[in-house]
């Protein structure tokens, strides 16, 4: 249970989330992929705090930043989905691909 194992787990979570974010057409599923990627970032930050510099609080602050980013991403993502659906009845990324006036 060393730093490398934690970071490899975090990398696996990040890459699974990346795969989901790249392949899913539904915007809500795409956001689930982003959440998983941020989960990997949180785990990596925690492992770095514990195994590299536990005396400094910077690693913990990084986790707080990542958790806030997760909350902001969820809120803004759902607001954008709602706005998109209201204006164009669109709920997949491919249908929202064309910029038009």
């Amino acid at each position, binding site marked *: 249970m060393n730093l490398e194992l934690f970071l490899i787990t975090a990398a696996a979570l990040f890459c699974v989330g990346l795969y989901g974010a790249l392949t899913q057409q539904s915007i809500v599923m795409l956001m689930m992929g982003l959440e998983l990627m941020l989960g990997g970032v949180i785990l990596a930050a*925690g492992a770095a705090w514990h195994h590299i510099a*536990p005396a400094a609080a910077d690693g913990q602050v990084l986790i707080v930043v990542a958790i806030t980013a997760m909350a902001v991403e969820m809120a803004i993502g759902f607001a954008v989905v709602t706005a998109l659906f209201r204006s164009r009845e669109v709920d997949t990324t491919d249908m929202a691909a064309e910029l038009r006036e």
Partner: protein
Amino acid sequence: MSTAAFWALAVLAVASGIMVFRFDSMARATFSLLTALLCVGGELIVLGLDYLGVVTVLMMTIEMAIMAVFMIMFMMNPAGLMPMTMLHNRRGAALICAGSFTSLVVGILLVPWPRRVGRAPADPTMDLGMSLMGPQMLTMMTLGMALFATIVATVVLATRRGRYDRYGDDLRAARPDDPVRGGVGR
């Protein structure tokens, strides 16, 4: 003990992370994501970050409950009863992800990580709080402003009819243009 907890949580986190994109039913996918993120919170507790682990667990539980509602609202096929694929560019994405995972693992194994400096404080939560209210105050204030801006932006984006719809583009209409008259003497 903590080694066993680490392995159990790590395997469960990655497995349920993969299952998020394999389940047809949206409710199952959401709860699978919840499991993955709860395992991340558990790993933080294994690392000695009790407060941040519990915060992660509580936040993810509520977040996934909200997400489940939105999933059912916006998905074409929320229950997964009609077999359909909602995927694009699978090969390209698989290549990108395999490539990035390989390069990350190679980097993780090759980088000479620095030795552990110092010891964890007796109460990491106290340390975090003193840091956020002291030297990291700028971070905390930036986060606060970002969250406030999120509240405003979310309301603006999700509002069906704002004041420009009701009073015109220059906000000079004498009477609001409402689908139903009434309310506050109008």
